[in-house]
């Protein structure tokens, strides 16, 4: 019989229950109050007193209210029909809810029970299968989704029967499996999985190496991220975190994009709801929304569900990875998630760690990032989860627990900088502090050599060095004055400005400039490097400034023009003439 409990105390969303039977840590229960069922999760047990965090407002809750335990942890329901859905942090389908306002205790089923899916079997009777084996395939929004053997299976099963190709609902039995003792198991298209447990249904997790193209130059060219890689974007407010994140989610070359809006502004989610159904995926030509799932737990939604939302998103990502798809998971912002942990830890009167965050924040963050990755599945196919989280450091100070602990685990670091944002140099990614560890991976070097050429990484490192040198000279000029340094110094400085304006800066709101395919990025990098290698002759520093401003202007017009169009070629010609004007032969 299910365990029951009675409310014995309430402090905000932390409730204590007296229970009459066994309960598990993280078990889900429902508290009944005034006709509503409030979902809650066990977070601490002391004798027969159980502390739960309620995922809803506890207004009006009284001592003596009853609670029912469910016997399972917080889990998600996985199956066809999730693409282009908008879920809350607990995977309730937001579109199925009535009314303009969210009602307390309203939970909606995340899938559609009536929809039919065209099932194509991938196994035959007699085949041996294990957990997560691909039994069949359905098509959702042009994605080949695999129907898999239940993730919880242990050992080997034999396929006793499998349905013929045809249209089925998610609850229809599509296969019957039998274990070595002859026990039969009916399988439908639905899987369930507890969100806080990582799925490990793959053979091997190698170091990732394949470039994940995002169309953002400051990422792809300068600090690339890879399929199955991890990255994070810290930045003070107003430095363009959200714009950058949206740009990546719109343009990245991924099969599935999952956006976890975790404790952020509702209007930002609305922007996705509004724009994604209209925007076209630059890689497939289909609507962006078709490959996107949104997990929205905006800042005014209950705090405990905010903590759950990132796990919900990650588990959904793992589900698609097990099908051999490339998943991009974006979480905005992981700081809000950490704050939710802090609020709860505070209510439980735990001894606080740095900045009042819980002591185990570092382990929680690293475990979470550890769930991303590029994997070889048991059947030899590959899949990946690329994870990019934003961090909102308090006061823009990167020496705070969430940023520091994230830095230990994420391999790419895109530091957004107030100073660049103030100067409207967007995306305001600081080119000197930011890094991508993948540039150092020999696996990545092999890959990029095949994809572009062997000189690529050398060129990338060269522009980084030039940017650093440019910054040093700018500081010297500030101290010594324009006349205080040789004219050549001005040339070096302006060459670094050229790199900044032409490669780093990119207009996220311009139709052409917002996305730069890799081929074009290669072209831009080569053009800029060639100019950097050209020797110019100037009499005074004024000539230098004047000349490079003209050059930057032409290059920017190039970036704004459609690649290889007549207009573009016109600017290319102008640039060549301009270079010839001053170059020393």
């Amino acid at each position, binding site marked *: 019989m299910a365990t029951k409990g009675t409310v014995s*105390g*309430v*402090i905000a969303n932390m409730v*204590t229950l007296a229970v009459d039977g066994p309960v598990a840590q993280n078990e889900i229960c429902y508290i009944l109050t005034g006709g509503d069922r409030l979902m809650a999760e066990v977070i601490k047990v002391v004798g027969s007193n159980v502390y739960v965090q309620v995922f809803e*407002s506890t*207004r*009006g809750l*009284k*001592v003596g209210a009853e609670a029912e335990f469910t016997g399972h942890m917080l889990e998600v329901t996985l199956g066809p029909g999730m693409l282009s859905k*908008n879920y809350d942090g607990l995977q309730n389908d*937001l579109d199925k*809810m009535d*009314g*303009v*306002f*969210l*009602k307390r205790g309203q939970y909606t089923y995340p899938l559609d029970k009536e929809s039919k899916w065209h099932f194509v079997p991938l196994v035959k009777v007699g085949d041996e299968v294990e957990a997560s084996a691909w039994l069949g395939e359905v098509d959702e929004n042009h994605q080949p989704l695999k129907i898999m053997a239940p993730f919880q299976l242990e050992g080997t099963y034999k396929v006793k029967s499998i349905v013929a190709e045809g249209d089925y609902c998610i609850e229809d039995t599509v296969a019957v499996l039998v274990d070595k003792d002859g026990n039969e198991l009916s399988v439908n298209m639905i899987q369930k999985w507890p969100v806080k447990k990582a799925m490990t249904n793959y053979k091997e997790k190698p170091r990732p190496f394949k470039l994940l193209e995002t169309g953002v130059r400051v990422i792809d060219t300068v600090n690339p991220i890879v399929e199955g890689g991890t990255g994070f974007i810290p930045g*003070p*407010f*107003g430095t363009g975190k959200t714009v950058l994140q949206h740009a990546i989610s719109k343009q990245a070359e991924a099969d599935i994009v999952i956006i976890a809006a975790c*404790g952020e*502004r*509702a*209007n930002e*989610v*609305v*922007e996705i*709801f509004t724009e994604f159904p209209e925007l076209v995926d630059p890689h497939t030509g289909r609507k962006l929304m078709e490959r996107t799932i949104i997990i*929205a737990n*905006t*800042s*005014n*939604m209950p*705090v405990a569900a905010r903590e759950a939302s990132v796990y919900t998103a990650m588990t959904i990502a793992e589900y698609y990875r097990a099908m051999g798809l490339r998943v991009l998971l974006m979480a905005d*912002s992981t700081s*809000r998630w950490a*704050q939710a942990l*802090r*609020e709860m830890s*505070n209510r439980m*009167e735990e001894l*606080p760690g740095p*900045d*009042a965050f819980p002591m185990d924040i570092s382990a929680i963050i690293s475990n979470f990032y550890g769930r991303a990755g590029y994997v070889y599945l048991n059947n030899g196919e590959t899949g990946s989860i690329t994870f990019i989280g934003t961090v*909102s450091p*308090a*006061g*823009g100070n990167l020496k705070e627990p969430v940023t520091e602990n994230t830095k230990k685990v994420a391999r790419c670091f895109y530091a957004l900088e107030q100073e660049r944002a*103030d*100067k*409207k140099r967007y995306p305001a990614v600081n080119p000197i502090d930011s890094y991508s560890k993948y540039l150092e991976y020999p696996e990545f070097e092999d890959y990029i050599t095949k994809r572009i050429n062997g000189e690529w990484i050398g060129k990338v490192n060269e522009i980084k060095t030039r940017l650093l040198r440019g910054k040093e000279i700018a500081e010297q000029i*500030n101290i010594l*004055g*324009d*006349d205080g340094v040789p004219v050549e110094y001005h040339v070096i400085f302006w060459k670094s400005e050229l790199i900044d304006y032409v490669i780093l800066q990119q207009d996220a*709101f311009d139709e052409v400039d917002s996305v730069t395919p890799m081929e074009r990025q290669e072209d831009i990098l080569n053009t800029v490097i060639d100019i950097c290698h050209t020797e110019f002759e100037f009499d005074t520093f*004024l000539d230098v400034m004047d000349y490079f*401003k*003209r050059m930057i202007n032409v290059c920017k*017009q190039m970036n704004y023009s459609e690649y290889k169009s007549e207009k573009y070629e016109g600017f290319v010609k102008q640039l060549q003439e301009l270079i010839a004007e001053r170059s020393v032969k």
Partner: protein
Amino acid sequence: MATKAFQKIYTKISQITKATCSLKATGVGYDELATVNGKLAQVVKIMGDEVTLQVFQGTEGIPTNAEVVFLGKSPSLKVSEQLAGRFFNAFGDPIDGGPDVEGKEVEIGGPSVNPVRRKQPSELIATGIAGIDLNNTLVSGQKIPFFADPDQPFNQVMANVALRAETDKIILGGMGMTNDDYLYFKNVFSNAGALDRIISFVNTTENPPVERLLIPDMALTAAEYFAVEHNQKVLVLLTDMTSYADALAIVSNRMDQIPSKDSMPGSLYSDLAKIYEKAVQFPAGGSITIIAVTTLSGGDITHAVPDNTGYITEGQLFLRRDSDIGKVIVDPFRSLSRLKQLVSGKKTRKDHPQVMNAAVRLYADAANAKTKMENGFDLTNYDERTLAFAKDYANELLAIDVNLDTTEMLDVTWGLFSKYFKPEEVNIKKELVDEHWVK
């Protein structure tokens, strides 16, 4: 408040702190209101039969045998058309000598809007101030604070914005406002003949600080009524949110919670977000726009209150005294409206985004030139031109006494570009230069 016959009266208080008192009671709901010797209080903690109440006016003079009556409801407001033109205190009781408002009783701090039912904000709110309309365009359904030091004229700017904006209702939530400022708003609104579309909930510095905690929810409950039931465009002014946060800190401190940064409660982000996220564009046409004030201490935006606010709101507006022109300007570097791209260049002229960015970039060049000048270096001809541009730009556009429409603002800016620069120096798309450059 009158007690009803069947209500149980408790008379044994077991613990009293500066802001809370505890007693043994049963059948009490979380968040429920009570009166303690007639003073309004709210349930903040229940542990078995021990109930802790937060007394809004403070616990001064409360005896251990005080009469405690539970009211069986959370804080609420009666809403109807009668709210218009009235002034209330933090409990929603009239303070203008008029009669009580009749209407539907609604619990304040109600549920959030389902994000999928929101509409994307897309209507420009024109204020005539170029520092706002040109550089940081406001959109209905937006939430944005002024970040300002206490001595800056933010209340005047806010009153101007409120009166110039085309809205159906203006709701003022005053927290820890001086009596003088309260009277200032009252005067400005009545002189403008706008009193009938104004509703005010005011907690002045003379009232107990903890009462302030009710003000934003009161104001926003009234706003939701007009925006949802009457599809009106409602502008909510909240001043000053730093006073609100201070009251939160007082309560959390008295409840022995572990403080996080700057002695603020760890839940500050969620507490502020709950208020600001009430800003919304409803699909049926109604909207709630929030313009707030967050006072800073010595311009420090890394303090927990402005910092958390910045992460919640859709931008912020900075006021700064510009010593070159002797006027208060809207600082173009630190101000930002995150929703501006929803309207600029779409509801305004096509060149708006590029002109705005180019002008700010040139203004930044002027700031560099100024540093050079102050350090005693020679200025280039370009430096001198940027400095001259910056002065005109500040005077004709950034100053808060400007009142132009957006097209005029753009024309003025093109005029300044053409006066001081060559087309290749402004870095704007060629087509736009060809169209607007003043030859």
